């Protein structure tokens, strides 16, 4: 294929942007998985809700920036309610119970989205401040995408700092390592769980808000995100944040170039990657061997 270097660069940047967004979503999922042993399938629905709320806030209140505050707040509150009144009841019941519950929740939320917002895809306009393009190596590239990159990077830097420097961050990391011990030491474990759960949901919702002008807002976006996150966890390794980061970038690029080369079968690449990883290194690229 004789495409100018600019196209490859553009696709690569596109992949990077998509990958960072994915990591924003996947990181919350990985943290909750590592700490509570729960793969919260409804997490992908939080991402979708974030995008849909962004649509409504932007539409009715006229400001995209407001939605960056309001949407994650609403989703965060919803997630904490869900944890407190639904998920908490399943901790004693075993993993399959949690799976059923979170899957059911994912489904109901998806259905609610369809009921409230309809099934047609919605567009969220890029905020005026970030509209327009930048010229880069002969190709024009939307400013907004660099915003996404920068924003995601800042958020993730913030998370990394919180986890490594603050007291609450240390407690969280300890709980990921050994929840029982943290409990025995007297920390209010349910509170920590709820906090991380809500925090993860807020991250996912933020990703949804930011993604809304970039991708279209449609009722299948939760499922897309779920599948992508799952591939990320399998490839990156269960419970490894670093692995999830690298895997997210990989999936982002794979998606991007897959669409470039084989548009109708882009999904195949993800499958191949997952299949190869499962055969060669079942615990993921960075996962811990059992």
């Amino acid at each position, binding site marked *: 294929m004789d495409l100018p270097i600019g196209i490859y660069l553009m696709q690569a940047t596109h992949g990077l942007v998509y990958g960072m967004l994915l990591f924003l979503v996947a990181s919350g999922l990985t943290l909750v998985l590592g700490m509570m042993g729960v*793969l919260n*399938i409804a997490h992908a629905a939080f991402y979708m809700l974030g995008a849909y709320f962004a649509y409504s806030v932007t539409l009715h209140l006229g400001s995209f920036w407001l939605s960056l505050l309001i949407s994650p707040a609403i989703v965060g509150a919803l997630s904490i309610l869900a944890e407190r009144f*639904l998920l908490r*009841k*399943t901790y004693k*019941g075993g*993993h*399959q*119970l949690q*799976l*059923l*519950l979170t*899957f*059911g*929740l994912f*489904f*109901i939320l998806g*259905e*609610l989205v369809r*009921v409230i917002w309809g099934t047609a895809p919605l567009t969220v306009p890029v905020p005026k401040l970030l509209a327009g393009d930048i010229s880069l190596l002969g190709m024009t590239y939307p400013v907004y995408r660099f915003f996404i990159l920068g924003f995601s990077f800042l958020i993730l830097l913030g998370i990394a700092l919180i986890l490594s420097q603050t007291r609450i961050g240390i407690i969280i990391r300890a709980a990921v390592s050994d929840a029982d011990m943290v409990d025995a030491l007297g920390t209010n474990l349910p509170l920590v769980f709820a906090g991380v759960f809500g925090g993860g949901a807020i991250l996912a919702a933020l990703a949804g808000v930011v993604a809304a002008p970039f991708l279209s807002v449609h009722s299948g976006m939760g*499922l897309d995100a*779920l*599948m992508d996150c*799952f*591939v990320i*966890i*399998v490839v990156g390794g*269960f419970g490894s944040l670093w692995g999830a980061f690298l895997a997210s970038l990989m999936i982002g690029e794979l998606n991007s170039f897959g669409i470039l080369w084989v548009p*109708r*079968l882009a*999904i*195949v690449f993800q*499958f191949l990657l*997952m*299949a190869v990883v*499962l*055969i060669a290194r*079942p615990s993921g690229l960075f996962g811990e061997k059992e």
Partner: protein
Amino acid sequence: MNNLRTYQLGLGIAGAVLMLLVPYLFPVMYIHLAVEILIYALFAVSFNLLFGYSGLLPFGHAAFFGAGAYVAALIFKNFPGMSLLLTLLITPLFCAGIAAVIGFFCIRLKGAYFALISLAFQMFLYAVAMKWRSVTYGDDGMTFNRPDLHLPILGTVSMGSIQNVYYLSLAIVAIGVLACYLFLKTPLGNSVVCVRERDIRASFLGYNVFLTRYIAFLVSGILAGLAGGLFALFVGFVNTACIDINMSMSVVLMTVIGGTGHFLGPILGTAFYVVFQDWISSLTKHWWILMGTFFIVVVLYLQGGLISLVSIKKIRLLVSRWSKEDGNHIENR
């Protein structure tokens, strides 16, 4: 023969007679519902073989149901002369092949990972069905004529009448469900349960955990595929809805609501699901949310499912009131 067994046998015979007389007792609309219940019941039983009995929860089980529907539909459409019975034989075999490939990857994983990788494979097949329009017609779907059934003594039976479709479905589903039941009574069936209970202990007793689970996966895929093939015959139209996430979710709902701890649980759950859907969807188009809510209520507060309300213990209590039954028999799952 003790009284509990007599009661169960009596109930079974009454149920069988009732099922044979459905086309004569009920109007056409209800026969359609009955066929739907039969087909989904087989699907749910195949699901429970994996979930209740093997301890594996797949979120993408529609992969086999849908594959079965598509294979049958493709044969009906492109090879209209092929014997119906042969098609219903080829379909599950083809699904066995698909299960053999998918299972190789899925069985390596456990818990949530198993659930989601099975969903991933189902979404993959869904994407194939969507995009391969030249063969599958995408989400527009395929229509086809239902072939006649040629039987050795009884002659040709047209599948145009719902009564005939009902009887064929009843026969096939009965065979499938019975096969599953008998399978669970063999040593292999015991291995499946044994591995579910304590897989490490089982492997130290000499059980090959992977292979045991793999076989259960194959059998489950075969039965689901058979159900899918029947579905194609029943509806006369197959599109991507047969192989999408809603179909996967439906069978989860049916089985869990019915109860995974008893062989008949999924059948009860399917009957409830189909009837409830038929009733509620005439009142509101958002019946899914009600069903989903009911599902969550069952998951949180009634883990034994609906069948636990009609449990053997209750029947035993009932029976012991009018006999001297001591009720000490443990129901073998």
